[in-house]
């Protein structure tokens, strides 16, 4: 079994035009920077991207939007990106806005082998249009389908040669869910260690879900909102 790839370019090279890909991260926190850069360089087009956000103009998925590689975004929040807004208003880009918990749980369902979930989020709103609803114990719920993605691309803090992953702080977010949900899951890690090095008690994503792993490099880890305090709390 060899899951270890040399770099991002090799790990994403078979991703074809028109693929559906999941990309982990919340804002710019915990995004797979190396794979995004490789996809931009490779020029893969007509992509459907499932990701909580769409990056900013010059970083994250924003880089793919600038190269017009994205056909459709499935996200919960897409502010902070002028090029995104331009493409959306001009009709170049298709967007499906999904409540954040629904987005996460549709990933989870895919990873747990369940076809759909019921959630109260969006009942009575335009999100509910055309969707089946069902009443459980007097409360209305929407039927939401599990995602079906060709690839999941995630970023972890540490990973081993067998694909076991450990995330750091809030850079975890959607990464473990998407890791479970891809037909092929590609993980980039800040530190790739030999199998047997990670404490099995501390593994967040078991290696069975991860097909390709590589040691990432040159992480920029851009901060979107740098907020600091002087002395007093808050």
């Amino acid at each position, binding site marked *: 079994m060899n899951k270890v790839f040399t770099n991002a370019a090799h790990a994403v090279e078979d991703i074809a035009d028109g693929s559906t890909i999941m990309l982990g991260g*919340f*804002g*710019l*926190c*915990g995004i797979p920077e190396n794979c995004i850069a490789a996809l931009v360089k490779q020029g893969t087009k007509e992509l459907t991207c499932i990701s*909580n956000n769409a990056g900013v103009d010059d970083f994250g998925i924003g880089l793919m939007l600038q190269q017009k590689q994205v056909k459709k975004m499935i*996200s*919960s*929040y*897409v*502010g902070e990106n002028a090029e995104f*807004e331009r493409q*959306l208003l001009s009709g170049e880009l298709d*967007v499906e*806005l999904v*409540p*954040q*918990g*629904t*987005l*996460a*749980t549709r*990933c*989870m369902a895919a990873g747990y082998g369940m076809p759909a979930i019921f*959630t*109260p*989020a*969006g*009942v*009575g*709103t*335009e*999100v509910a249009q055309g969707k089946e609803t069902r009443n459980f114990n007097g409360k209305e719920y929407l039927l939401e389908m599990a995602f079906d993605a060709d690839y999941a691309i995630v970023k972890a*803090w540490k990973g081993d040669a067998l694909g076991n992953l450990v*995330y*750091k*702080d*809030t*850079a*975890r*977010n*959607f*990464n*473990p*869910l998407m890791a479970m949900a891809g037909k092929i899951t590609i993980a980039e890690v800040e530190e790739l260690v030999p199998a047997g090095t990670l404490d099995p008690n501390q593994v*967040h994503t078991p290696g069975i879900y991860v097909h390709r792993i590589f040691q990432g490099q040159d992480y920029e*880890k*851009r*901060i*979107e*909102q*740098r*907020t*600091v*305090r*002087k002395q007093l*709390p*808050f």
Partner: protein
Amino acid sequence: MALDKYQIAQRIAQELQDGFYVNLGIGIPTLVANYIPANLDVILQSENGLLGMGPFPLEGEEDADLINAGKQTITTLPGSAFFDSAMSFGMIRSGKVDLTVLGAMEVSENGDIANWKIPGKMVKGMGGAMDLVASAKNIIVAMMHTNPKGESKLLSSCTLPLTGKRCVKKIVTELAVLEIVNGAFKLLERAPGVSVDEIREKTAGKLIVETGIPEMQF
């Protein structure tokens, strides 16, 4: 005198109880964290995957891997925990979060809320707001009583696309504390020096006013 945004946050902080798990939205709700009474144990949940959110870091200690749902750099407090986004909304959906405070563009007299979209103008997405309002046991809206054009944001029915239906319990504005009761805004308190008439004038939806409405106490 109408309250400023800090005083709105301060008034909302009076609703906190010992042992509460609380989710604070972006904007005025975030400021509530400044006024948590020292004698209460209140744990802040950030829906990107953290329980036990602490203050902003000291300069030089910012960590790109540690942010809140507003994408601001933050810290953790002792006893905090990280988790993934599905678990985060799991704790919201299953009613483990005691109080949600969020902003709004409109609230209706039956508790509907609109805060995510202005058709043709603003399409940024709902983020976690729809999940929060659909499941929170107790929702307090922090907002200004009127929009920048001076029009009431407390309406008989919302004109903007809804975030959730019949979910708001309480509203704190710069003028008043109101509760949603039987399809109406019930006036509970008024800001110091603000008259019931002014509140009545700026509330487009049905308003219930009983006698002797007290001023807010700080």
